[in-house]
Structures are given as structure tokens and as C-alpha cells.
């Protein structure tokens, strides 16, 4: 019973701290502490946000970017989960891929953008592949850790209940590793958004990042801020959805 108000208090606190920033921002802009070019008022940004939403340009850019982010994340999930499990189950696969992953994981994936553009063009294909490339590492590493830590008595029990190797993969290994795989996907989701926006900012080819850079070139600061705020809110919403899904299956988070 005591948990309930404290959670609510936490939410109120979050709202207040955001409100404080917004109020400070608005006051500073109205007081003329900075020129509107550098810091447009929050209300001006919201008005501009409404305009770009109404004329359909921001929603179209957002759809383009989300499509790229999700397509890349989807490909990374298929490859990452498959490879992570293969590495956990086969010593040979582990030997082959472990050094490659150790090398590529800490590297800045955006550095590969020029090469990806050269190979796959400036539109969606290069962006999707770059997102997949950036997201596959946290997913492989999370899946590998999850699949190597599966309770051995689950695997032994499954075998003595007549499970074949292929069935073991789908009926035991995947569900047993699922909570930690999902945690890795939660890490990869913001990576997919960051990579998409950054790649669009650097490489153009449409989407939120390209529109933002375009507005900046024409000194349309309210538009720039409107796009940035949209990116923040979209990231927050998507992570909240992932958290909801994660806590919706409590049965998984136990060791029976």
C-alpha cells in the first residue's frame, strides 16, 4: 500500500523537473537573454511544431525515420539472436565471431556511413543496414550471455523428456533466454533511433535528421527545436512501451 503514492510522487517529480526547464527556457527567451535565432521561445517552437505537423511534413519525416529504425532493428534482431544463440551452443561459432565482435562493438558505427552510402546509396537501404550494423552488437552480446547462462537442469530435463536439438532451441533455449534477450532489445532500440537520426543528419536522404539539418541551414531555429523535441518524445514513448512489454510477462522472471 505504501508503494502506490511513492510511485505517483516519482511521476509528479519528473513532470515538475521538465516543467521547470520549460518555464526557465520560456522566461529566458522572452526576457531577450538570447536572440530568437539561438533560442526561440518554447511557445514559438510549439506553434511551429503544430504548423509542420499540420502541413504533413513532420509526420512524413517521422514515418521515414521510424521505418528505417525499425527495419534495421528487425534485421539486427534476427541476425543478433540467431548468432548469439549459435555462439552459446557451438564453440566453433564462438571462436570465429568473438574476436570480430570484440573489435567492432566499441567502434563508432556512424564512421561506416560513407562506405555504406558508397555501397548502398543515400536513401533507405544504406540507413537500414547501418542501423542493423549498429544494433546487432548489443543484441548478439546480450543473447550470447543469456543463452550461455541457461540453467543446465532445464536443458537436461528437456533432453530426457525427448527433446531434439532443434526443438530445444525453440522450446527451451529461446524462452529461457528471452528475458535477457528482451533487455538487450531495449538497449538496442534507442541505438536504432540515434543511428537513424545521425545518419540522416550526416548523409541526408530524407527523414527527421535530414529535415532538421535542412531547417538549420535556413536558420529556421523553431523548426530545428520542434524536430529535436519530437525525437525526444518518440524515444521516451518507445522505451516506455518496451518497459510495459517487459513487465507484462512476470512468469518469465523467475528461476523455478
Amino acid at each position, binding site marked *: 500500500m505504501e508503494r502506490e503514492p511513492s510511485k505517483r510522487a516519482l511521476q509528479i517529480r519528473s513532470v515538475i523537473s521538465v516543467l521547470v526547464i520549460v518555464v526557465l527556457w520560456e522566461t529566458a527567451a522572452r526576457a531577450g537573454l538570447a536572440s530568437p535565432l539561438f533560442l526561440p521561445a518554447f511557445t514559438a517552437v510549439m506553434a511551429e511544431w503544430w504548423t509542420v505537423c499540420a502541413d504533413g511534413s513532420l509526420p512524413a519525416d517521422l514515418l521515414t525515420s521510424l521505418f528505417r529504425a525499425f527495419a534495421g532493428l528487425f534485421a539486427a534482431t534476427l541476425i543478433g539472436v540467431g548468432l548469439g544463440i549459435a555462439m552459446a551452443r557451438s564453440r566453433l561459432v564462438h571462436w570465429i565471431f568473438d574476436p570480430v565482435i570484440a573489435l567492432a562493438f566499441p567502434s563508432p558505427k556512424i564512421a561506416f556511413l560513407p562506405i555504406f552510402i558508397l555501397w548502398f546509396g543515400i536513401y533507405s537501404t544504406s540507413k537500414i543496414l547501418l542501423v542493423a550494423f549498429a544494433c546487432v552488437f548489443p543484441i548478439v552480446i546480450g543473447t550470447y550471455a543469456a543463452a550461455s547462462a541457461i*540453467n543446465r537442469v532445464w536443458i537436461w530435463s*528437456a533432453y*530426457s523428456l*525427448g527433446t531434439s536439438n532443434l526443438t530445444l532451441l525453440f522450446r527451451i533455449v529461446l524462452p529461457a533466454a528471452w528475458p535477457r534477450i528482451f533487455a538487450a532489445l531495449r538497449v538496442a532500440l534507442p541505438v536504432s533511433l540515434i543511428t537513424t537520426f545521425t545518419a540522416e543528419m550526416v548523409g541526408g536522404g530524407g527523414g527527421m535528421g535530414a529535415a532538421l539539418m535542412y531547417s538549420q541551414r535556413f536558420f529556421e531555429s523553431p523548426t530545428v527545436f520542434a524536430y529535436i523535441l519530437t525525437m525526444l518524445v518518440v524515444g521516451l514513448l518507445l522505451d516506455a512501451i518496451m518497459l510495459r512489454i517487459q513487465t507484462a510477462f512476470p512468469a518469465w522472471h*523467475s528461476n*523455478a
Partner: protein
Amino acid sequence: MRAVTDEKAIVPKIQIQAVSKSYPGDKNPVLALRTVDLSINEGEFVSIVGPSGCGKSTLLYVLGGFLEADGKVLVDGKAIQGPGTDRGVVFQEYALFPWLTVRNNILYGLERGALAPEERARIADRLIGVIGLKGFEDRYPRELSGGMKQRVAIARTLACDPAILLLDEPFGALDAQTREVMQDELLRIWLETRKTVLMITHDVNEAVYLSNRICVMSARPGQIVEEFKIDLDRTIPRERLFTSDAFNKTRNEVWISVRQQALAAEKLNARV
């Protein structure tokens, strides 16, 4: 025809011949089992007791086909090829699949078989009744007590109707009262089905109460150092059996044998 039946009567259900097992250690390999020989006849209930860390669980894992070892392990006269549905296993830590409900845990092994769905459901329902968990079919393992979990684990194993039951300290994690109830249930199930059972335990009372034969294992490397044939009347209630002279005489003999091995293990560890 006669020769065949005779041969069947002679060949033990389980034959463990000169089985040795070592694990890779820090410097040298650690020998867990040294040339263990054990034969178990069909319908026998054999317990292995011994000091902790003597390799008794290792022996069960080898017989289950989970670990490779030197020597021969034969079931019905044939060498085992990894794990199989002929050997059902119950682990101390329950090993239920936490993402499946009670019913789906019990159904899991049946789904691998050739039975029709209605037949599987019938078997699962019957077993849920046998273990007294009607009304808990749709619960997840995390919602059950230790005793209930272990009942589900036993039902899941029995669902596949294995000829052999391998029990690895099945009641070791349960409180004393629950353990007694579970022992009574296991005894009842065994008396009904007469499956061949190999149980690992360090509870001497439990071993004497349930087994036909008790093998005492030495400290690591594990070897079977003494065997006790148990010839008690299983049909009399637990209270009368436990207070009978015959039970206590056997219990004391086994207990002293195990204690000697445990003391030897202490000495060995102290020297290291």
C-alpha cells in the same frame, strides 16, 4: 522362447561397469568417480548415500546420459546414447520450465511423443489429480511452494512413463514435514508402478524408508564401499515402521557406514 525369457530375467535393468569420471581442475584433473560398478534389477529401488561432494550426483548424471564418462553404462543390456525418455530424471532444484504453466510443464514431454492430443490431456489431468494439484493447473511455477514444484516435476517425469526413475536428492530442498509427505507419495507411486529407481540422497532415514538396497559411497574419488539389502514391510504405516527395531537396526548400520565415510572425507579435506 524359454531362453529369451530366462535371459531377460538375468540381464539387470541397469549395469554400470567400471565407470570413472574426472573433471578438469586448476592444475590436475579431479577424479570424481573411480571404477564404480553397480547393477540394478528391474523394479528395484536403489539409493546411493555418501558424504557431500563424493560424486554421487555425478554418477546419476552419467547414467542420465548428461555427462560422458569412462567405462560402460548399459540399460537393458545396451549401451546408452545420451539422455533418453527411458530414464526420467527429477532434480533437487525442481527444473520446472518457468515460462510454462503446471499443465504445460506436465504436457511438455507428452508433446514429443506420438499420442493424440485428447490422450495427452487425459494423462495430464490424471497426473494433476495424483499429485493433488487440481485447481493449480494454470499457475506458473513461481506461484507454487517447493513441495508443489517438486510434485509437478515428478508428474512431468511420470507423464512420459519412463521405465527408470533417476532422482537426484529430490527432497533435499524441502522442509522436514513436506519431505515426509513427499516420501510417502513417492513410496505409494513406486509400489503402484514398480519402476526401477536410483535415488541419490544424504538422508539415511529416507534411504532406509524407501529403498530395497542402499549403496554407500566413499569420499572423492567416489567408490561404492558398502551395500545394504533392506527387507522391510512397506505396507505398514510410517509411524510403526520408524519405531520398529528392524528399521532402527538397519538405519544405524547404514548411518555408521556413512559417518565413517564422512569422517574420512573431513580428514582428506583437512590434509589438503
